[in-house]
């Protein structure tokens, strides 16, 4: 087996060998279906779940490739390459990039799902963020999932099965990705040409989030920012420090998401202009202002979401350090997420009692919960930092 995981069409996955083994029978059974034999190892609707950054949509895409390939997912034939590039005519990939999936989008998908494949073996609809389906959209999808055309497959991805409507969930076979082991992430980075020490650091610090690990390995700025974040708790001496630290984290989160959002928005606005022909002379078409307003509303909701995600990464980093402290307080020989800060963290672990560390962990977890409940991110951060300082 190649060092970075599985051969062929599965090579994009990191540390998901058990999942690949679990899916292999389905790939074989799909061939039986095409040969006209019933085989319960395959089914029409799948739900891929797993923690953020574990590679849910890569797994679903690889599965789609393995099914389209006449060789069970060789990785190099035209079908395999097209699926992995997202250009296969019979694999529709719904990439929401932070927006919700509405009922109109789903109606279009349902139409596609009713068609027989053009060049491939299956007609595959891959929804990368099934957790963003509106209830209405999910309902519009139900019938097609329940009674799909003979050669149609639905592959849905979501963080957990709770994120998908129960009616959808119950009609899908669920497969779950694990948090990739640190060693597997490090090996994948090394095979991309990252030096061993840096790969090991990035793999540990990412806590199994592959995208985050790549960013940490690739971008010095990301590493510096993480270091700054980890130094924060030591600087919270009075409420002024806490409020200012919260302000800085919030501002940085806004800048980070601004950069991402601006690029996506530009692309979507150009697509909008093309679609409505507002680039050329003449009156704006009927319906165009409403569509533009809707697009801008979605942009706003995505920005909100991006800010939350960015703040959450900060909280996860802070949590990792406090958990390291807690580990050191019970067993000094354990491997740390922040191994490179061992001396510092040991100091913290000696100066504080475990109950204090637990209160700090609680403060950070409380902040994640507050943000999930829509508390203003700045206010949630202020509360967390005040609690860290007072713990």
């Amino acid at each position, binding site marked *: 087996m190649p060092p970075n995981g599985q051969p062929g069409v599965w090579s994009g996955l990191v540390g998901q060998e058990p999942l690949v083994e679990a899916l292999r029978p389905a790939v074989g059974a799909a061939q039986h279906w095409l040969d006209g034999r019933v085989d319960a190892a395959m089914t029409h609707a799948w739900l891929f779940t797993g923690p953020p950054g574990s590679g849910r949509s890569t797994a679903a895409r690889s599965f789609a490739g393995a099914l389209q390939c006449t060789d069970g997912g060789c990785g190099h034939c035209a079908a395999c390459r097209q699926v992995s590039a997202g250009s296969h005519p019979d694999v529709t990939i719904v990439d929401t990039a932070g927006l919700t999936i509405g009922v109109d989008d789903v109606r279009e998908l349902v139409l596609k799902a009713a068609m027989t494949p053009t060049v491939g073996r299956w007609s595959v609809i891959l929804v990368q963020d099934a957790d963003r389906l509106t209830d209405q959209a999910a309902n519009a999808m139900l019938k097609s999932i329940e009674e799909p055309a003979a050669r149609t497959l639905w592959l849905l991805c979501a963080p957990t099965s709770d994120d998908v409507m129960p009616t959808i969930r119950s009609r899908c076979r669920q497969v779950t990705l694990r948090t990739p082991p640190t060693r597997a992430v490090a090996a994948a980075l090394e095979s991309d040409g990252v030096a061993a020490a840096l790969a090991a650091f990035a793999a540990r610090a990412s806590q199994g989030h592959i995208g985050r690990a790549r960013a940490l390995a690739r971008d010095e700025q990301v590493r510096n920012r993480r270091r700054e974040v980890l130094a924060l708790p030591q600087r919270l001496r009075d409420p002024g420090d806490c409020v200012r630290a919260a302000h800085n984290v919030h501002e940085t989160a806004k800048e980070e998401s601004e950069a991402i959002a601006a690029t996506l928005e530009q692309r979507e606005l150009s697509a909008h202009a093309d679609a409505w022909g*507002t680039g050329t002379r003449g009156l704006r078409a009927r319906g165009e202002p409403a569509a533009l307003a809707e697009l801008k509303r979605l942009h706003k909701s995505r920005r909100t979401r991006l800010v939350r995600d960015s703040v959450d990464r900060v909280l996860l980093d802070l949590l990792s350090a406090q958990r390291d402290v807690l580990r050191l307080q019970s067993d000094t020989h354990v491997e740390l997420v922040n191994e490179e800060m061992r001396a510092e963290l040991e100091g913290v672990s000696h100066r504080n009692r475990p109950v204090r560390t637990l209160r700090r962990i609680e403060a950070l977890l409380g902040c994640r919960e507050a943000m999930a409940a829509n508390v203003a991110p700045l206010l949630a951060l202020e509360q967390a930092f005040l609690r860290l300082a007072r713990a």
Partner: protein
Amino acid sequence: MAARREILGKLVLVSGSAEFLVQRTVAEWQAELSDQVADADVTHAEAAALDAGALAELTSPSLFAASRGVVIGGIDNLPDDMHGPLVAYAGAPAPDVAMLVLHPGGMKGKALLDRLRGAGVHEIKVEAPKPWKMSAWIAAESRRLGVQIEPAAADLLHRAVGDDIRALAAAVEQLCSDHPGARVDVDLVNRYYEGRAEIKTFDIAERAVAGDAAGALELLRWALGQRVALPLLTAAFAITVRRLIKLAFAPGGLSGGDLAREVGCSPAQLTRLREQTRGWDASGLATALDAVAAADAAVKGGAADPGHAMEHMVLTVTGARVGKPGR
């Protein structure tokens, strides 16, 4: 815009992110154009989809009107190969065309902006005022409409309406058209917004931080009766307590405008804020802001009795003071 200026044969750049102000500038420009040219034909285009052919078409003589206007939106998205043609056009605009190009501010397309400025185009900057400049902006808006507004009244209006400049501009316009030529003071704004619960959210927060539990609760119950949006209430408390913390623990050596900017208020508000910090210590302020965050979570997480969560917030904040109630 009082002064009549040449508008045909010119390219005007509008830069800035305040969408409402951009729209208003475009509308004013269009009005001016129709003043100068009867039945002028105005065309809107998005820069992202602009090519050389489209630009030529937009700026060539119209079949239907002798002169006309062209508005090009989002020139930060103008394709790179169109930078040259647009800058060239800016240097030699068609005499019977009035053109407005819009840039939303920010770093994207900065090179194009600099080249247009280099070509000597007239630029109108429309940035939303920072919170600590909002009162001054309200005063300027009022002056535009021929009304004088006192600084304290502008402040109150800002707090009543919030940071949304579209809403603020509408409020100023309403106030000015109802009281032409008047001098607007605090009483007038108060009378004007009587019964509007939003205006009271900061009052409630300020009474609470002053230790006036009874007064804060009375006003809170009234606001709850008016079905004030509870997130506005927790936001007003957050801003109020946050400012106290920022002022009480400001980095040393700041004063005047710098301090106001650090705290996030107007310089005129500093005196009142300083008064409010009396009776507070670090632990009390931390407790207060913690309680506000908890109340925000209760409101947004769908607490069974949000009104109770608000009362609890008010009482925790007033109870966190160490000194005797002020005022």
